[in-house]
């Protein structure tokens, strides 16, 4: 396996963006590709530093792309750049142009993320459903469904930069909005694997479990016992999600507990 650190120029952002790519050497067929997003304080290096990601990739023969999206929350910022367009369109197109070994088929492309990136992968997966067939959202939900105001705090200001003042749920930032829009259009519907730790605030699914219940999405919510908002959970959930997508049944179903 090769671990590639790429500096990719984005026209959409007019910025050089660092991207980490885990790539099988001498691939024999187009590679199934997992696109992973980081948390609010993270970058493209964390998935590789804190999980067994490269080992999973080697064992399963897949490609993995981990990208930095800074503080954009993976959406088109109200006061900032169009990160959703970069992540959902430009990054995918450019990497497939550079690496024709990456599969361009929808059924071979999956988007996942943790915490802030858990919202991000729902935002991108539901916003660009023709590109991604599956979403793996770990410890997050509809981050846009809150009332945001610049109350002088760092958190308040950061959210206003991304979503603007007020509630952004009924805009292209809203997970539920994007899902409903997709239902109206009649698909295609990415499958959603939603995981959370029993000991964290989003352990109840952030209100998405009831929402997706009645929609035509293949939605699965799983609570991992004994873990909080932490890498132990995301490492286990990622491995489980990869195997579910590839149809690999673990020898011990409770290997992660």
């Amino acid at each position, binding site marked *: *396996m*090769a*671990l*590639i*650190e*790429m*500096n*990719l*120029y984005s*026209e959409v952002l007019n910025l050089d963006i660092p991207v980490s790519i885990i*790539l099988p*050497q*001498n*691939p024999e067929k187009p590679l199934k590709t997992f696109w992973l997003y980081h948390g609010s304080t993270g970058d493209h290096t964390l998935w590789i530093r804190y999980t067994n990601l490269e080992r999973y990739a080697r064992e399963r023969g897949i490609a993995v792309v981990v990208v930095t999206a800074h503080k954009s929350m993976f959406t088109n910022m109200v006061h900032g750049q169009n990160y959703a367009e970069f992540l959902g369109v430009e990054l995918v197109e*450019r990497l497939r*142009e*550079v*690496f*024709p*070994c990456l599969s361009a088929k929808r059924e071979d492309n999956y988007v996942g993320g943790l915490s802030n990136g858990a919202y991000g992968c729902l935002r991108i997966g539901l916003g660009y459903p023709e590109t991604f067939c599956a979403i793996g959202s770990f410890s997050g939900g509809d981050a846009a469904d809150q009332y945001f105001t610049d109350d002088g705090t760092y958190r308040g200001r950061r959210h206003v930069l991304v979503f603007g003042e007020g509630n952004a749920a009924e805009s292209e930032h809203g997970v539920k909005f994007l899902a409903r829009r997709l239902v109206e259009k009649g698909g295609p519907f990415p499958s959603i694997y939603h995981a959370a730790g029993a000991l964290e605030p989003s352990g109840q699914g952030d209100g998405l479990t009831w929402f997706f219940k009645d929609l035509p999405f293949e939605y699965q919510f799983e609570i991992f016992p004994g873990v909080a908002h932490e890498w132990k959970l995301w490492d286990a959930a990622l491995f489980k999600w990869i195997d579910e997508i590839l149809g690999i049944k673990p020898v011990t179903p409770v290997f992660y507990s």
Partner: protein
Amino acid sequence: MDYLRMQIQTHAPRTPLPVDMLVPGRGEKGPFKLAILLHDVAGNNTSWMRRYTVESVFEGSGTVVVMPSCLNSFYVNMYYGYDMLDYIVKEIAALCKGWFNMSDKPEDRLVAGYGMGGYGAVRAALEQPVAFGKAISINGLLEPDRFYDDPIPALKMEDVFGPKEFMLRSANHLPNAVRQLTLLGRKGLLPEITLCGGSEEDQRLYEALQKAGIPADLTTEDPMTVLAGKVRE
């Protein structure tokens, strides 16, 4: 161009090694050419980018530029150590072909180096003419046997090349590699070798290449101008 830094698992040297690459920018359509740039003694994958303005030389030429790190190996299959010649000659092009849209023509594959890398470039091109259509040596250390008597710090010549008598009879002694290639007699598949510099070593190898009928050029022109020209031929 986009800049890639990576760690790959190599097969011939059987060790993970860092590699830097520049890939053609958006809009440049393949199939792409290949240029492998070899560093000097004490260098690594970062040396070319630090020493030369590599990106401006290759910009717009539709070339995947590969800058490997080969330690102080002289790019040979070491007597005691790593099989770096096999890595350069066989492995890198195969790796690029697996990932990128690469051209299959030998004339679209170039190997260049300075110092020890200049020797490596000529050695690699003489070893397997279908691997590289062009080789460029910049102030190459083309007669490394002299370092048996004038040692390079922390570089054991015996470990790299074996005993001196052995080295002088092997294809790692470039005049032997020239003879070996001529004996194979593969007309039309000879690499085109450019020697940048004006040393006596350059002169002697140039004469040997000419005598053997291998297309060669000896020049004192700016190496980056030569490289930029060769890659756009």
